[in-house]
């Protein structure tokens, strides 16, 4: 039994060339986890092709790749070193039923030819050419790469339409190399049974039911119960994990901290489960949207896709090191500094759910609940000391028509004595219509554009009948002042829900991680945007509202805190700098008129103390840049137009590590 059958005879000059196009393909596909039979040269007989393709035995499960002679009536192999038909209009029904066929051969996709006949019967898709094709004699790699592009797209789980578009583009990209690329391109034709198929979802394997969990209690039942915003099966890490199967292997655990670092690469691992009696490959797509009460698909942006091979029957699989989805240079989402991440999965006979009918948050959350192929991560984790204050921005989503909704803050789990407030845009608040339940207005904070409402008594606070104009949505902020009685190392959830007619149409969950100031390693100071060692004198006796506790310096950076110069003045690279500080440095360096001003900025900021701390010498009065170094930076800026990342400055030859560090430190 194999996933893919390759047929490539070799009995005349033309097939010597087509045979070479298939050379190395088997090992290439095996490296991607597929099983393959390669009927090479004399093995490409009618008997062998029938053995591997006949529907009765289903020895080939997904794809037939055919590099050989072709005509309107047949695709050919060889017998006794002579060209011989192997797939014909007569046997196509049996041999290609529920398979995808990809040919590089003449004329099989002409009108009423073998390709169209096969698809009219039960073949899922057939890509061929309407007329004879040209091949280049001699081992010409651009042609081989072009032909392989469709195969690579298929085995990456792309839809057949995407595969076709990729092949067409591969041809177009090579138009200037040789005329045959245009010639073949113009004669390419795809027949398909339906749209949206991939080799993962439509093949000869039994249909399965695969799922990705909405919460730890989710067993794949539709509709699912419980939280929808906290999928434990989407795991985001900053650095790649060497052995994710082991590290994330316990399905009863939630490994996510799931903070996404803006401006850096993040790594996404998935865990998928299979309820069925047979194993299946699973194709997964991951998207992001800004943190909002309702992540409607129109706000999704594609991050990446992967295939988890052979997810076992009644079992599960964790992304391997190879399956990781890298979220490159995570973009700045603006005022809302956090994201929802959405995963959609598909298995054999269990395609990705169709999102086209979703227009409102209500549709969306119902969709997530009703489909076990979709999961969501719509949370934000915040650290806080007891008596500490945290602010989180998110978006209250509106819809194409005017929306009347309630915002509900469920703070039942927070310790007594905590204060929970929410900022609401004044134009959502309609006098006489909007009402408060277990909430009050803090008039001292009311401004021209916003109200601040706070929960009265421990429990749930509701703002009823807020109005959002058609097509609009507003940024909001939730403020939590954690009670002084909060326990150390405990996570307190706060759920913010958007409701229409009593039904939840969207929600954002904040997880407030309480950490005792005496037991953490680092303390960040909000007013200075700097993080200190917790033992540093500079953080003694600060107002708890002005500090954030951390046990990891990376987490502090993700939240926009950089290393303080008094206690953390050590060597670093661009990777260690927060997105916030990086933007500050870049704005200056991109704007500065000449190298002299750049030198002066460093000189004016970094004094003797910095010099002592960083370099341990005392002779000098302070620090300045060497003019030639500053000139190099300005020169590089001219070459690039402008710097878009700190790494570009870090990498300028002869600028040196210390100089880079001095420049960045000047902006702290």
């Amino acid at each position, binding site marked *: 039994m194999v996933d893919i059958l390759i047929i490539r005879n070799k009995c*005349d*000059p*033309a097939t010597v*060339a*087509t045979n070479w196009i298939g050379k190395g393909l088997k090992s290439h596909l095996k490296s991607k986890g597929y099983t393959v039979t390669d009927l090479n040269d004399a093995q490409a007989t009618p008997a062998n092709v029938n053995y591997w393709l006949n529907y009765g035995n289903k020895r080939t499960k997904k794809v037939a790749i055919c590099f050989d*002679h*072709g*005509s309107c009536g047949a695709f050919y192999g060889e017998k006794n070193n002579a060209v011989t038909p192997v797939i014909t209009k007569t046997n196509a029904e049996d041999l290609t039923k529920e398979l995808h066929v990809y040919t590089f*051969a*003449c*004329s099989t996709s002409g009108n009423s030819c073998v390709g169209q006949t096969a698809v009219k019967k039960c073949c899922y898709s057939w890509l061929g050419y309407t007329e*004879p*094709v*040209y*091949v*280049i*004699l*001699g081992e*010409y790699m651009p042609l081989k790469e072009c032909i392989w592009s469709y195969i690579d797209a298929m085995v990456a789980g792309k839809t057949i339409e995407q595969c076709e578009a990729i092949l067409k583009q591969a041809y177009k990209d090579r*138009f*200037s*190399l*040789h*005329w*045959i690329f*245009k*010639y073949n391109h113009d004669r390419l034709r795809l027949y398909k049974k339906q749209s949206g198929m991939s080799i993962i979802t439509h093949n000869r394997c039994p249909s399965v039911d695969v799922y990705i969990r909405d919460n730890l209690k989710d067993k794949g039942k539709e509709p699912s119960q419980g939280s929808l915003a906290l999928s434990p099966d989407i795991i985001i890490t900053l650095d790649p994990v060497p052995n994710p199967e082991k590290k994330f292997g316990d399905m009863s655990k939630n490994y996510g901290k799931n903070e996404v670092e803006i401006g850096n690469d993040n790594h996404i691992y998935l865990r998928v489960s299979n309820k069925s009696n047979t194993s299946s490959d699973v194709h997964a797509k991951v998207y992001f949207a800004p943190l909002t009460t309702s992540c409607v698909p129109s706000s999704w942006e594609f991050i990446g896709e992967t295939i988890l091979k052979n997810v076992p029957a009644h079992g599960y699989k964790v992304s391997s090191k190879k399956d990781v989805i890298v979220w490159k240079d995570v973009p700045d989402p603006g005022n809302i500094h956090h994201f929802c991440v959405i995963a959609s999965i598909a298995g054999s006979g269990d395609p990705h759910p169709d999102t086209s009918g979703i227009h409102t948050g209500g549709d969306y959350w119902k969709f997530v609940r009703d489909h076990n192929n979709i999961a969501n991560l719509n949370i934000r984790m915040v650290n806080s000391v007891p008596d500490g204050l945290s602010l989180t921005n998110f978006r209250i989503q509106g819809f194409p028509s005017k929306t009347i909704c309630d915002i509900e803050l469920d703070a039942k789990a927070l310790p007594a004595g905590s204060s929970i407030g929410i900022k609401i845009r004044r134009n959502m608040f309609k006098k006489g219509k909007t009402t408060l339940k277990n909430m009050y207005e803090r008039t001292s904070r009311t401004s021209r554009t916003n109200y601040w409402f706070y929960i009265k008594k421990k429990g749930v606070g509701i703002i009823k009948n807020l109005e959002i104009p058609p097509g609009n949505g507003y940024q909001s902020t939730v403020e939590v002042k954690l009670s002084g009685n909060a326990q150390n190392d405990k996570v307190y959830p706060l759920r913010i829900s958007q409701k229409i007619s009593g039904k939840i149409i969207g929600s954002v969950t904040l997880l407030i991680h309480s950490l005792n100031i005496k037991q953490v390693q680092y303390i960040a100071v909000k007013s200075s945007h700097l993080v200190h060692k917790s033992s540093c004198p500079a953080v003694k006796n600060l107002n708890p509202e002005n500090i954030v506790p951390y046990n990891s310096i990376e987490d502090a950076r993700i939240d926009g805190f950089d290393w303080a110069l008094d206690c953390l003045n050590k060597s670093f690279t661009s990777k260690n700098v927060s997105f916030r500080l990086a933007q500050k440095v870049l704005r200056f360096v991109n704007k500065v008129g000449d190298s002299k001003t750049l030198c002066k900025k460093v000189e004016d900021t970094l004094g003797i103390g910095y010099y002592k701390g960083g370099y341990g010498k005392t002779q000098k009065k302070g620090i300045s840049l060497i003019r030639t170094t500053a000139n190099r930076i300005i020169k590089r800026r001219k070459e690039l137009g402008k710097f878009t990342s700190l790494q570009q400055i870090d990498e300028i030859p002869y600028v040196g590590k210390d100089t880079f560090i001095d420049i960045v430190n000047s902006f702290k």
Partner: protein
Amino acid sequence: MKSNKQKKLGSQKKRPIEKLEKWVNEHPKEADLPAMNITTGKTFTAREVLKELKKEEKTGIATVDKEFLEVKSNIKKWLEEI
């Protein structure tokens, strides 16, 4: 102005034979690659086609080989796009 511009564009447009010659000069390796029609087994290189075209132009005598005519017409269509 308008007619001037059109004239300029017109004069910039190269004839196929010149375009092919330019391409052959820029892609010496590809110009010598034999391209085979898998059905007929006929093979031509772009350099050979250029040579034939030049000969035709010089002598006024065109080749009537069916496969060659087809390749010639395909190359002309291709030259319009590159």
